[in-house]
């Protein structure tokens, strides 16, 4: 969501992510003692014991807790330590005798380190900060009641900061929410009126770096009562048992990193308290309390604040989840509608775009594209197809996950900048390596208010030979205009897209299955057709022959006994049968012309023509036709079909001759990527209004008495040419002869192959 503001240069990362928990210093307002159970022998103590207890470190080290406290208190503690949780013990009031009868009262908190050592932390008790539980309960209830009448997150947050400030009295209480990328912004603030407001400001990720966020997640409340107090060491620095520095990860007294202290100083903070807000195990945000001067908050009050924070925050979570839930239900409904439409459509893509709701609604996008089987289906505002080609190439090379989404595509893929107005945001799901569904969102120019220039969030300084980071000094409002970003994709939308992906995959698989079945069915029906063709040629002919033969036998045997009428009737019967036989032959010839049956080979068109003319020899002789031709090219064609084509066209030219001597000429011209053939005749010609109709099966322009024929010849020609990916047409005028033209692609199907090659170049990757 934010332009890259974190300085990612080489050595910064380890500086920024310095392991805070190896910090061996604590804040001076309390005392830390590392103990070994069960003897409760003292292994390490903070070097400020003299200030608080009036004894030196060496007085305590190598002794036990009994040397510091009354046996009665120690026994109580020992009992508490056997309980399953230290929460029963925390906090415990402890009296330490300083000198004579002078006692100091402390709030004592125990925790165990991951190495199994017991850490006791003591903070002086301030009697007036003692709040009874009941009043705290009322406080929390009032707050929650106020929350229930509030509906939006901003008001919620406002109530939290108000309540926390009311209890604690900090000068400023803020609610800080983290983004996905670790940056954060202040979404609630309650403060002394004269203080500058931080509400709405963004803070770069480096302000609360990863190790700090990790600590916040494990340590729910952190107090720095005096940011100017000098930290004190724990001695000895190396623990005699673990042989390493004390592990202060869960210490409440642990002193903050120098960088953080400096950061607070730069902001003018004298005391700070931070309460972590955790949602689903993740640090969702912080309640940050600032005071201009040092301020102590008792352990109990801190706990109360933490409790309040947790209770109220759980309300927020529930509220957020309800909102999420409603939207999720809405998307689930859309998604199931889409799956329903897809399964009803012949092509699942239609189901995604042709109804309401459609693909756009599923992800609240302004544009969407489905790339399937090398084809795009676009809906709404999308980049152009040629841009999508490159985008998909990029996705193929760079995305291996089931889903990819960004609200700033140009940051990942700079070429996208040119169509930022439609696709600054991209949500993509690959259906397979080659097929994608994409959603787009346009650029939304936003102004982000930063608490200080995020580009100078920290600086490097060289002190005592150590390279270290110092936080920025200025927190003045710094306005940044964010470009090339869209509104962010919500997690529920991404999940809905993923669900849809499953649906599509299922349907595609099922449709592939159905297609395979269809192919099998087709194969079967093709085989059936071939059988039918054979039956037609054989079984259908047989009874016809029978009729013809017996009628002829009648005529032959009894010609003397038959009158003229009988002979005429017999002739009609014979004619009918003979026409039927020709029809069967022609339909059979037509059905044999089939793309799959075409056997492409280099064919000399001259040879095909000569063979056709041989078949037409008799009719040529009868009509005295003069047939001439140019030298014809060699083409990629089925030689039998090419011969048939010439035979039908020249045969027609002979048949439909005029009173003149028939003159027929066959010539050819090379066009860009095809051969143009023409068959010219000086015959009776064709009325141009019939120039389409003559190519239709069984269409005739004359009676059979005038010109015999079945009306199949040109239909067969057309089919042959179509199987060769060419075109056929006629140019003629009635009484002025006719010229039939047809084209054959140069090199047969080469143009088709070239098309595929281009595709390979564009989509070559990942295939």
């Amino acid at each position, binding site marked *: 969501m934010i332009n890259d503001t974190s300085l990612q240069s080489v050595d910064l990362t380890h500086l920024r992510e310095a392991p805070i928990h190896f910090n061996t210093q604590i804040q001076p307002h309390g005392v830390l003692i590392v103990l070994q159970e069960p003897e409760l022998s003292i292994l390490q103590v903070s070097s400020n014991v003299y200030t608080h207890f009036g004894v030196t470190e060496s007085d305590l080290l190598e002794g036990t807790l009994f040397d510091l406290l009354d046996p009665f208190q120690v026994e109580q503690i020992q009992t508490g330590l056997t309980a399953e949780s230290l929460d029963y013990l925390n906090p415990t009031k402890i009296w330490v005798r300083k000198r004579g009868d002078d006692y100091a009262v402390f709030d004592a908190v125990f925790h165990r380190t991951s190495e199994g050592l017991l850490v006791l932390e003591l903070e002086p008790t301030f009697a007036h900060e003692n709040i009874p539980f009941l009043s705290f309960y009322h406080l929390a209830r009032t707050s929650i009641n106020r929350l229930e009448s509030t509906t939006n997150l901003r008001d919620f947050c406002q109530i939290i900061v108000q309540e926390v400030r009311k209890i604690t009295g900090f000068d400023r209480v803020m609610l800080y929410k983290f983004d996905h990328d670790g940056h954060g912004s202040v979404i609630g603030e309650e403060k002394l009126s004269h203080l500058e407001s931080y509400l709405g400001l963004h803070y770069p990720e480096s302000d609360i770096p990863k190790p700090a966020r990790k600590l916040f997640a494990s340590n729910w409340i952190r107090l720095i009562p005096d940011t100017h107090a000098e930290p004190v060491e724990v001695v000895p620095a190396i623990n005699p048992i673990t042989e390493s520095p004390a592990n202060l990860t869960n210490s409440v007294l642990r002193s903050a990193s120098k960088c953080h202290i400096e950061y607070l100083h730069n902001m003018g903070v004298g005391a700070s308290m931070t309460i972590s807000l955790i949602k689903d195990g993740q640090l969702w945000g912080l309640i940050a309390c600032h005071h201009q001067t040092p301020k102590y908050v008792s352990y109990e009050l801190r706990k109360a604040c933490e409790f309040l924070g947790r209770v109220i925050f759980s309300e927020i979570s529930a509220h957020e989840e309800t909102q999420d839930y409603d939207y999720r239900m809405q998307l689930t409904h859309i998604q199931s509608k889409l799956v329903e439409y897809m399964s009803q459509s012949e092509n699942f893509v239609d189901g995604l775009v042709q109804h309401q709701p459609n693909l756009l609604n599923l992800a609240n996008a302004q544009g969407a594209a489905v790339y399937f089987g090398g084809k795009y289906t676009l809906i709404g505002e999308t980049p152009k197809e040629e841009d999508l080609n490159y985008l998909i190439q990029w996705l193929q090379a760079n995305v291996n996950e089931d889903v990819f989404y960004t609200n700033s595509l140009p940051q990942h893929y700079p070429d996208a900048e040119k169509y930022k107005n439609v696709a600054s945001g991209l949500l993509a799901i690959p259906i397979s390596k080659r097929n994608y569904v994409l959603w787009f969102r346009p650029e939304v120019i936003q102004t982000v208010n930063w608490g200080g220039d995020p580009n100078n969030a920290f600086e490097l300084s060289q002190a005592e030979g150590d390279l270290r980071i110092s936080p920025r000094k200025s927190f003045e409002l710094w306005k940044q205009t964010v470009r090339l970003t869209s509104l962010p994709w919500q997690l529920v939308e991404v999940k809905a897209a993923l669900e849809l992906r499953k649906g599509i995959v299922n349907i595609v698989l099922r449709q592939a299955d159905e297609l395979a079945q269809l192919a099998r069915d087709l194969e079967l029906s093709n085989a059936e057709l071939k059988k039918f063709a054979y039956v037609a*040629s*054989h079984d259908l002919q047989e009874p016809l022959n029978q009729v013809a*033969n017996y009628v002829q036998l009648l005529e032959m045997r009894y010609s003397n006994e038959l009158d003229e009428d009988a002979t005429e009737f017999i002739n009609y019967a014979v004619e009918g049968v003979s026409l039927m036989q020709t029809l069967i032959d022609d339909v059979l010839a037509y059905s044999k012309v089939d793309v799959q049956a075409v056997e492409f080979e280099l064919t000399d068109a001259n040879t095909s023509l000569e063979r056709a003319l041989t078949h037409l020899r008799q009719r040529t002789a009868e009509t005295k036709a003069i047939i001439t031709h140019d030298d014809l090219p060699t083409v990629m064609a089925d030689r039998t079909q090419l011969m048939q084509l010439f035979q039908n066209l020249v045969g027609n030219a002979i048949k439909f001759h005029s009173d003149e001597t028939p003159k027929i000429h066959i010539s050819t011209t090379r066009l860009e990527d095809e051969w143009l053939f023409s068959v010219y005749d000086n015959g009776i010609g064709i009325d141009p209004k019939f120039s389409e109709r003559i190519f239709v099966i069984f269409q005739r322009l004359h009676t059979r008495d005038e010109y015999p024929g079945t009306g199949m010849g040109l239909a067969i020609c057309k089919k042959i040419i179509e199987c060769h990916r060419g075109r056929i047409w006629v140019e003629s005028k009635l009484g002025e002869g006719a010229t039939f033209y047809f084209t054959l692609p140069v090199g047969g199907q080469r143009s088709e192959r070239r098309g595929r090659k281009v595709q390979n170049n564009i989509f070559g990757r990942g295939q």
Partner: protein
Amino acid sequence: MSGEDVKSRTIFLVEDNKADIRLIQEVLKNSLLPHQVITARDGVDAMAYLNQEGEYKDALRPDLILLDLNLPRKDGREVLAEIKTDPKLRRIPVIVLTTSSNEEDIYHSYDLHVNCYITKSRNLSQLFQIVKIIEDFWLSVVTLPLE
């Protein structure tokens, strides 16, 4: 041919269609050669006759077989294959006489050693010519082994 007494020839016609049988018989009536036509209506019957099985135990060995390809019970192609692989029968000339002009049928028949393949004419006068040619050629011109 010598002037010896003309032996009557036996023509075995395997054809399922009664009309076709009758037609060929009618056409053969014009023949000058003494002959007799024996018919079988299916492939099984035809093989039984040729192998002199059952009621055909005294069957005459044909001088010429006219065989249709499409037959009930046992196909003409099977009949052809059996004749041409049987040492006793394979020397009898077999002429496939059929309406089929299917290339596959033609190739297949010659592969099975048919003596010749003739597509039945649709024209009666042509049929007369064909039958006459068959007679002249196979029963007069050609010298066949005497069996």
